[in-house]
């Protein structure tokens, strides 16, 4: 056990910090869930990619720099501490790319990874359906074989970024007689496919943060099938693993938010506003972010030792999502009568955070996983 960073790690950190200090936009970009903001964020992805920071842990041929997991965690710490913009490409990079690395053909890898990394093609997830939210095995959207094509009929919903995305990664039922987990396939669908309509759904704050997808005879070529036909569940579960695991929400994001919260408290305390009683909540939020940091580095060591990132990922999902809500709620409470104002980054952050305990498997499901798969309690 040596918890100091190696000279190489420190150097990597310095390089990232220096580049970010020089390149992060001085003014915040518009919300990525508006048409203009989406394109502003895409342009920022180009800049990151061209400088080699978009996907640091990826192979060089796809635009990465083959950074270690520790380096990736360091990059995330520096990235969020610098106040850099949110990552509009994260659905693709975090959720789909690991699946393409594991299950994609060489052709698929060459076709998709680089444009995804550069933000040329921005992806949204098409898994949930109106009657299949957390219960994905209840998927009804059908994709029927027609020669080299699949013809899709059905409806998807809660597709984050779906209003403006270029591509969708979807889970569909290719065997019409199948039930539950069997007979699903994993299809990649261009947004401009005929017979596919994406309709924006207003998020809590009114912005079109999601879309519903309506498939009415949309034809997709079989080269866009990821993994085997009918094996979509297994393929998807690999992605779910990374959705809940190390790839989705690195500690750096919350460490940065916690530092901002400490700063907010300091600022308000200097102006005489807040009460000492609330300091404890600020410290608690800061502590949770630190705890998440050390737990993540400890997990990195386990993974490096060959252990899988399995159900333990549920610990991380519950922690970061509930921390994120508490942290922003604390900020709003500190703001007192200004806490209800819509025009604050803390309110934006709070609204965003509230989705955390719901998506990617509700936290109730995560706690089931912890108790059944980690602790081994009886399922029924």
């Amino acid at each position, binding site marked *: 056990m040596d918890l100091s960073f190696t000279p190489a790690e420190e150097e990597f950190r310095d390089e990232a910090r220096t580049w970010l200090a020089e390149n992060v936009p001085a003014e915040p970009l518009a919300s990525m869930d508006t048409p203009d903001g989406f394109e502003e964020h895409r342009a920022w992805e180009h800049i990151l990619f061209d400088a080699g920071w978009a996907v640091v842990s990826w192979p060089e041929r796809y635009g990465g720099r083959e950074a270690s997991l520790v380096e990736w965690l360091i990059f995330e710490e520096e990235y969020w501490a610098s106040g850099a913009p949110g990552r509009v490409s994260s659905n693709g990079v975090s959720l789909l790319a690991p699946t393409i690395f594991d299950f994609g053909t060489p052709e698929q890898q060459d076709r998709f990874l680089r444009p995804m990394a550069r933000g040329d093609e921005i992806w949204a997830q098409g898994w949930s359906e109106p009657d299949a939210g957390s219960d994905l095995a209840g998927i009804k959207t059908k994709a029927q074989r027609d020669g080299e094509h699949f013809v899709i009929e059905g409806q998807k919903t809660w597709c984050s970024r779906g209003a403006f995305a270029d591509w969708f990664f979807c889970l569909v039922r290719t065997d019409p007689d199948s039930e539950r987990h069997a007979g699903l396939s994993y299809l990649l669908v261009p947004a401009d496919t005929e017979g596919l309509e994406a309709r924006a759904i207003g998020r*809590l704050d009114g912005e079109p943060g999601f879309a519903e997808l309506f498939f009415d005879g949309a034809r997709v070529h079989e080269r866009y099938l990821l993994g085997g036909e009918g094996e979509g569940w297994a393929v998807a579960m690999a992605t779910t693993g990374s959705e809940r695991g190390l790839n989705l929400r690195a500690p750096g994001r919350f460490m940065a938010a916690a530092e901002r919260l400490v700063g907010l408290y300091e600022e308000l305390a200097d102006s005489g506003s807040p009460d000492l009683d609330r300091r404890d909540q600020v410290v608690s939020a800061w502590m949770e972010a630190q705890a998440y940091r050390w737990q993540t580095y400890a997990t990195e060591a386990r993974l490096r030792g060959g252990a899988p990132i399995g159900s333990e990922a549920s610990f991380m999902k519950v922690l970061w999502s509930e921390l994120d809500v508490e942290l922003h709620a604390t900020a709003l409470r500190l703001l007192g009568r200004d806490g209800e104002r*819509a025009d604050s980054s803390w309110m934006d952050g709070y609204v965003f955070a509230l989705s955390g305990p719901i998506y990617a498997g509700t936290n*109730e499901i995560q706690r089931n996983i912890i108790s059944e798969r980690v602790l081994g309690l009886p399922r029924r």
Partner: protein
Amino acid sequence: MDFSFSDDQIMFQEAVRDLLANECPPEVVRSAWENDTGRTDSLWGALAEMGVVGMTAPESAGGLGMDETDLVLLLEEAGRAALPEPLLEHTAVGIPTLAEAGGAIAEAWLEQAVAGEATLGAGTDGGYAVGAATSDLVLLIGDEIRAVPVAGASLVEHQSVDWSRRLFEVDGEAAVLDADPALAFDRAAGAAAAQCVGVAQHLLDATVEYVAQRYQFGKPVGSYQAVKHHLANAALKIEFARPAARHAAWCIAASDPYRSRDVSLAKALASDAVDLAARTALQCHGAIGYTFEYDLHLWMKRGWALSAAWGDAAWHRNRIAAALGI
């Protein structure tokens, strides 16, 4: 010691509940979110007709001579319907404060206000007054109460997360009222507590209804013990905040010596109740509750705003600590 309401009080509550059920459905609340005023076309008039708007004024001024114990049930109903009208500012705070002050300013404004022809606003000095632009006279409560006629005042607007709550910084020529600012503040905080209870109750009811019919993994979501216990916890908070809020109303009406302490008790409990109800409602709804199109967020955001307004839970706990001498 008798917590029961009179038949008249219950009938008044039911009449207001019926009115709001018919005339203040979510579409009407949404219209107030989108329009210029943050208010509805006809609800204030309908409430004036029923006598609600001026109920807290003495009968000599055209009111119903009612007090906070009569009003508290109506404030709960207002919360339950997410009513975007100034029942708190005008009826719970403005009218009794003007009546208390008496003199020229009451002469000038009270009868009009009771009749619903003039609207009273209220806010904290240095803070915000909700709906000042649609008020005629705004009371700014601080170390003293300053009454600012809106005509000629300068208003700076800020957006609330609840779009029907138009927040204004108000500045202008003011008359200092001969009325107790601590009492006026407690009227506002007590009324906000009652509204929080109503908002929380709606959030709970709507969620119970949703989870009973929404299926996941082959069972109603509401049959899962985790969901049940979330909702039981929200129900617990409401069950204990409601009597405290009603007791606070009585403390104001009866000039109880512990009024400020027990108003703080009510507001702290009610703020916590509505905060938990909002979190629980969203979590138990899942993604649908996270959308703008679905109505749940109208109450969630009203709850967030009311929870923070007129002192949030921590502020009121501090005031209780001071009252306890610690």
